[in-house]
Structures are given as structure tokens and as C-alpha cells.
């Protein structure tokens, strides 16, 4: 299954305040959207990889996400290769591949833009899980609330994340039940068969989750969720010296990024 959950480790990244991590995340997101030059994006990627290294979490723990990304990356590359309106023709492809919108030439710009798109997406795909995997959900919620995200919204977001394991657990029971009813186990089977099995799973999964969510609704309101009273927060959060370092660095990065972009650097 695709999904990332908190991994307990004692590293500088883990001990950062949730707000600091949210800021750094926003800066990376913004810069990755602003720059299209693969070199610049590679720089950002290197920065993110550095953070992964510092968090001491192996990249293999988001194998599912990376696999999913692989397919998307392939599609993006192909689309850009054929359809990007570039000027520097590298070589010509003719014959049956010539479809509507395809000029017949593979262009340098097409390749560069495709690679840049893939890299940008990759940065986004791996930086978001890092936040979730190094920040306990309560801290994340508190950080959202402290940066003035409405409590209800912050709560719903973090609760949805916290319910993922329960949904995965239910999915595994359902898939076991279906195996017992004669559905074949596809070890390396055809994609079509896998899709059909997954479609069969969705009905009980959705209905079951819906039923649970009704219980959740009752449980939450029985515990005064939404009371017309100013809510208190039991958890506390504090900035430490390393937080200030990361905040300063993020701000610097952001300003530099804006200046470069104004000078028309880092774009193709």
C-alpha cells in the first residue's frame, strides 16, 4: 500500500518543531514550482536527500510511493518527448508513431522539460512523506493550529492520516477473505487481474470504513468535539536553537530563489 507513517528516531530532523518543518516544506514546494531548469531542481533534490540522510530513514520505506512515481514519471517523459513544442530538433521519427500534435521531431527542449518535470515531481513526492515520517501527527496538528490553520481543518487532516493504518488493516483482512473464496493470489500476475481484485475489494472496504466513520462521529461528539468553548491544547511546542538555524536558512533560500527568478535564471 502507498502511505507513510511516523518512524521514531532520535535525529535533528525529528526534534525540529513542526512549524519549522512546515516552513521548510513550503519553501521547497515554492522553489520547485518556480524553477524549471533541471540543474536548479537537482540542487533542491540534493537538499531534500540531505534531509533524508539526516533523518536516518531509508528511502526504501517509501518504496510504494516511488514505484507509483516511476509509472507517472514514464508517462510525463513520453508526453513531453513527443508533444513539447521545442525548437532544437535532435532527430526525426516518422511512420506509425506520428499522431496528432506530434511534430515528427524529438527536441532538446522536450527532453529537458520532461526531465525537469519528473525531477520537480520527485522532489514533491519525497519531501512530503519525510515530514509525515519525522513528525508525530499530534505535533503536526499542533503546528498547523499554531500557524493559524483552523483547528477543525487541522484535526480532520491529521485524523485522516492516523486512520490510514486501520484502513490498510481492513484491506488486508478483506483480501484474505477473498483469497479464501477462491480468488487467486497473483504473485506477479497480470495488471488487469490485479485491478479486478482491487475493484472487488473497494466495496467492502468503503462500506466498512463508512460504518467506522459513523462510530467515529458519535465518539468525537460524545467527547465534546465542536463545543462552543475556547479549546485548550494539552500539548506544547517550543523552538530550539536548531529550529532558528533551519528557519533562517529557509528564509535565505526563499529570498535567493526569488532574486534568481526575477533575474530570469533557473528557467528554461
Amino acid at each position: 500500500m502507498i502511505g507513510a507513517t511516523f518512524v521514531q528516531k532520535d535525529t535533528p530532523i525529528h526534534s525540529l518543531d513542526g512549524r519549522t518543518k512546515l516552513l521548510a516544506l513550503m519553501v521547497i514546494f515554492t522553489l520547485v514550482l518556480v524553477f524549471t531548469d533541471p540543474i536548479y531542481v537537482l540542487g533542491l533534490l540534493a537538499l531534500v536527500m540531505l534531509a533524508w540522510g539526516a533523518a536516518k530513514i531509508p528511502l526504501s520505506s517509501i518504496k510504494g510511493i516511488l514505484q507509483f512515481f516511476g509509472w507517472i514519471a514514464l508517462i510525463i517523459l513520453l508526453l513531453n518527448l513527443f508533444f513539447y513544442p521545442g525548437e532544437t530538433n535532435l532527430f526525426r521519427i516518422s511512420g506509425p508513431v506520428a499522431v496528432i500534435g506530434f511534430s515528427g521531431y524529438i527536441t532538446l527542449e522536450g527532453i529537458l522539460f520532461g526531465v525537469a518535470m519528473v525531477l520537480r515531481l520527485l522532489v514533491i513526492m519525497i519531501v512530503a512523506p519525510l515530514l509525515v515520517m519525522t513528525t508525530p501527527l499530534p505535533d503536526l496538528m499542533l503546528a498547523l493550529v499554531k500557524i493559524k490553520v483552523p483547528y477543525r481543518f487541522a484535526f480532520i487532516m491529521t485524523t485522516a492520516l492516523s486512520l490510514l493504518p486501520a484502513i490498510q488493516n481492513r484491506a488486508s483482512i478483506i483480501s484474505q477473505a477473498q483469497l479464501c473464496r477462491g480468488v487467486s493470489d497473483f504473485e506477479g500476475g497480470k495488471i488487469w487481474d490485479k485491478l479486478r481484485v482491487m475493484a472487488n475489494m473497494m466495496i467492502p472496504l468503503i462500506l466498512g470504513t463508512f460504518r467506522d466513520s459513523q462510530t467515529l462521529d458519535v465518539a468525537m461528539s460524545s467527547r465534546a468535539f465542536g463545543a462552543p468553548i475556547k479549546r485548550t491544547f494539552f500539548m506544547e511546542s517550543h523552538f530550539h536553537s536548531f529550529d532558528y538555524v533551519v528557519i533562517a536558512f529557509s528564509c535565505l533560500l526563499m529570498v535567493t530563489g526569488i532574486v534568481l527568478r526575477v533575474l530570469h535564471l533557473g528557467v528554461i
Partner: protein
Amino acid sequence: MPSIIEIKDLTFSYPHTEKPALKNINLSIETGKFVAVIGPTGSGKSTFCYCFNGSVPRLFNGDMNGSVVVAGLDTYENEIPILAEHVGLVVQNARSQLFNVTVREEVAFGCENLGVAREEIRKRMDEALAFVGLSGFEDRQPSALSGGQQQRVAIACVLAMQPEVLVLDEPTSELDPIGSEQVMQVISRLNDELGKTIILVTHDMDFVTHYADRVIVMNEGEIVEDGTPRSVFSQAELLRRIHIRPPQVSEVALELKKCGIPIGQIPINLEEAVVEMERLRHAH
């Protein structure tokens, strides 16, 4: 004793249904009582539970007539979060009523919503977790606990909000014997030591005889009997009609009585059964 719950002429129907889920319920429950609610599946027990904190009719829409007053608050006029300070609700599915990442967040959640100060939350959390026997579990993930522990966390969560009434809808039906026993002991102590009023829905008749002062029997949305465990479990005809199986010793005594053996009082627990059988043996 003054009554803490007053229900008058309560009738409730879910949308698009012909039969009402609850019909003509009149009830008054005294402060500090341990009340068991029994009845077959579909008799309206869960709907009944949801009435006490206003979940019916606020979360479960439908037609409601009559009134439910808990701790002086009419459930029709007061929002669920307001009632939550007076009525704690624990449901059957242990896992899906816990939604926080750690036990600490879980127990603090209700108090935070009520605007309780941080230091006070800490104090209440320590007390509540100690009461249910889960001190030191603050950092654990609720989803990784056993079913019995999860139910005890759920109880600690409502306990920290300091309600006068606890409503528990089949809290042990999905637990193993050890888990059930531990949960029942906590519920019993809530009543004995803290004086909480308990409303417990259960299918376990041994628990009913062991813990309850009063038994309410429901069938097809109505209260068909209301009395002590003994008065309920002595009525062979009623039990058969609505498919309730009394404790085994009561069942044996009812059967012997039917065969003309002069059983005195129908025993409802092992001790009473031993005494009664020995008495009969000596009388013969």
C-alpha cells in the same frame, strides 16, 4: 435518591422506516444506580443509548417525540458537546471510537474541547488512567493495544471529562474473557467507588446478575420489563418469548420448577444455586 435521568413518552423513528425504533418509553433513573439494558438484536438498545447524550436525534436523524432530560438538561435543547460533560458514551467497537495517535492525545481530547486548563488535564489524565489500570500507557498507540485495553482507554477518555452518567453499549461483546472481566471490573468500580450512574447494554447475563441493581428489558423498541435481575430471570415465559437466555443456574431452576419441583426463589448466581439445591435435597 433524586433521579438523574427522566424520560417521558419517548418515541423515535429513523427516516424511511415503518416501525419506530423506540416506542413510548417512560423511565426515571436514580443517581448512582447500575442499570443493565438487555434485549434481542434490533430491539432498539443502541438507539436507546444514543438518546442519553443527544446523538439521537442530532447525529441520527429521525422523528423524535417526548423528552429526555439528563442532569437537568433537555437533550433536545442542548448540543451533544454540552451534554458530554454529563454523559459519557462508550460503544461496542473499541477500535473505531479511538482516533488519536497516542493514548495521551486520546484522553486529553475531551478535556481540551471543554477548555480545561493544561495542568488540570494532566491531573485528570493521571487519575483516569490510574483508575482503569493503564498508568504509563500515555505514549502507546491506541490502535496497537488489545481490545480490552482499548475499551479501558475509551472509559478513561470519558472519565477525564467527569460526567455523572456513563452509558456503555455492549463494551465487552468483542473482547476475550480476560479483557471482558477487566473492563467489567472497571465499570463496577466506577459505580461503587465514584458513584457514577451506569447504563450498560450487554448480552452477558452473568454480568447482569453480578453487577446490576436494575434490569431493563427491551423488545421491538419498547420496555417490556423493568425490575431486579431476579424478578426478570424468574419469568420463564417472558425470557422464552423474546429469546433471552438467563444465567445457566436460573435456567436449571426454571426447568425444575416446570417439572413440579418446589423451587423457592429462582437462584441467579452460583452461590444461591448451591444453597437452594442443598435445601431441596435436605427437604426431600
